């Protein structure tokens, strides 16, 4: 089985591109399944089901979806093997600009769209910088010049990536992508022992773990403060009165 990890900002066109690409993989007689990782809500599983694609979904709730991804991807891989898949695709909501679900030696694809603005490539971290393939969608609604400017910005932050323009609505370009996702060689049995491409920030704060109360006494773990003029701490001011 081949595993492909696909990540990208919300609504960038991941599902559209994956569905069209799977059409081409299926036409080659390959069996493909999807695992969808999101935070709070997703209907993507229904879209995959409707297309007759075996699918699993996981919601990370209050956790960073990429942390949640690493904790579950081995089990998901075993599910894929049991289903007899030739290709397993993971779709992750790229909500965290610091983390990415990419694993060394496992194909990593980032999907971003032309509408997200030319400064976006600069802002996205490892999710864009360490992808093997960057898919740019929604080229149908912007000018050739804007596509060129956007692609050159992407190239600047990730010069070694394959950059492809795909139309998520018509599927133009998805056949080409499909040829890059499966080679008969790869025969993944387990991810145990493999490593993430980038470490994820080590510590979480108490709010990551469900804390809702506001105030310094509730803040634990990795807490960082803004640089503001001093003497603004209400708890301390009240205490000294």
């Amino acid at each position: 089985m081949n595993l492909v990890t696909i990540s990208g900002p919300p609504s960038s066109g991941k599902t559209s591109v994956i569905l069209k690409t799977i059409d081409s993989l299926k036409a080659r007689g390959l069996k493909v399944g999807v695992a969808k990782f999101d935070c709070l809500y997703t209907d993507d599983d229904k879209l995959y089901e409707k297309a007759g694609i075996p699918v699993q979904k996981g919601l990370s709730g209050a956790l960073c979806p990429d942390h949640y991804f690493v904790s579950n991807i081995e089990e998901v891989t075993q599910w894929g093997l049991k289903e007899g898949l030739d290709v397993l695709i993971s779709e992750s909501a790229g909500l965290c600009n610091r983390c990415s679900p990419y694993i060394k030696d496992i194909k990593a694809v980032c999907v971003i769209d032309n509408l997200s603005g030319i400064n976006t490539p600069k802002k996205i971290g490892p999710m864009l910088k360490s992808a093997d393939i960057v898919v740019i969608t929604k080229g149908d609604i912007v000018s050739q010049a804007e596509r060129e400017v956007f692609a050159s910005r992407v190239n600047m932050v990730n010069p070694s990536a394959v950059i492809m323009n795909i139309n998520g609505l018509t599927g133009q370009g998805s056949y080409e992508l499909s040829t890059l996702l499966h080679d008969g060689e790869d025969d993944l049995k387990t991810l145990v022992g493999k490593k993430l491409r980038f470490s994820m920030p080590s510590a979480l704060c108490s709010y990551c773990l469900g804390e809702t109360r506001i105030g310094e006494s509730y803040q634990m773990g990795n807490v960082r403060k803004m640089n503001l003029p001093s003497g603004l701490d209400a708890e301390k001011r009240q205490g000294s009165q």
Partner: protein
Amino acid sequence: MIKKEILEHRTIGEILKDYPFTDSFFKNNGLEIAGAESLNWASYFESIDEEEREDRALEPDQLISQLAEFINQMLEFLDEGQQVHSLTILPGTDKSGQPEGFDEFVVRTGEVISIVGPTGSGKSRLLGDIEWVARKDTPTGREILINDDVPDTSWRFSGAKKLVAQLSQNMNFVMDLSVEEFVELHAESRMVENRGEVVKRIIDEANDLAGEQFKPDTPITSLSGGQSRALMIADTAFLSQSPIILIDEIENAGIDRKRALELLIRQEKIVLMATHDPVLALSGDRRIVIKNGGIAKIIETTEEERSILSHLEELDRTLLSYRTRLRQGESLID
């Protein structure tokens, strides 16, 4: 080819001096290098706060590999010896698996080829084969050669160097910029030298192509359909690095289509356009007829056909003048 091991021994200042375009690499990766010119790679990263490095996932080793890759791409891109002179299509099969009836089809720079055929016949697929530089690995089995040779795969994969620029019907500008700022930005991404001049030229040419005038400080999002297309074509002619231009059904564009084509040809481009418009189809030197997914025929535009062209253009102009009168609230009867 520069290797990352060599870069490691140079200072940031030396890298910038040898490869001025790396300035944009540093900028877009959020690396502040002012004042760090005398540092080499390792000591530059040591000068960044560890917490910041961790926050922004800055990995010196990965970044220097990317920088080396970027420099190599740019050197190749700036190398004039890499120019495209011709494009060759080698036959594949149609939708029924029948071989296409031609041996090879060669197009040279400065030529315009039109592609005709009913909806669903495979016009866009042919344009797709060219864009992907097909190697018998698309549904049609066609093969594309560049300069009579099997091209290297960098045409497929590179972000900076694309073989093909596409112009299509329903395209808008979405950035919040004026015409001038926008063209500047594109020129900058192309590392054009005499930028001011090029920008002015593009705006002038676009104004010539569009019926209605616009100013350099007009926001691009408020251009009319015809004005945007005029700007897109002028911009593509002068700033697109791609030697081949594919036009997918750009009918009734509200611009002077013949002049638009002339502009592209003058810039030594290869132009292929899928069209149903007889005026455009006849402005091509040759036309490809597509049936059932395959190239069924290649027709040379004859002198006789061209004589019809002037008649068609006359009709076109008449229609246009009626449209203008209608728009201006005049009566259509003299």
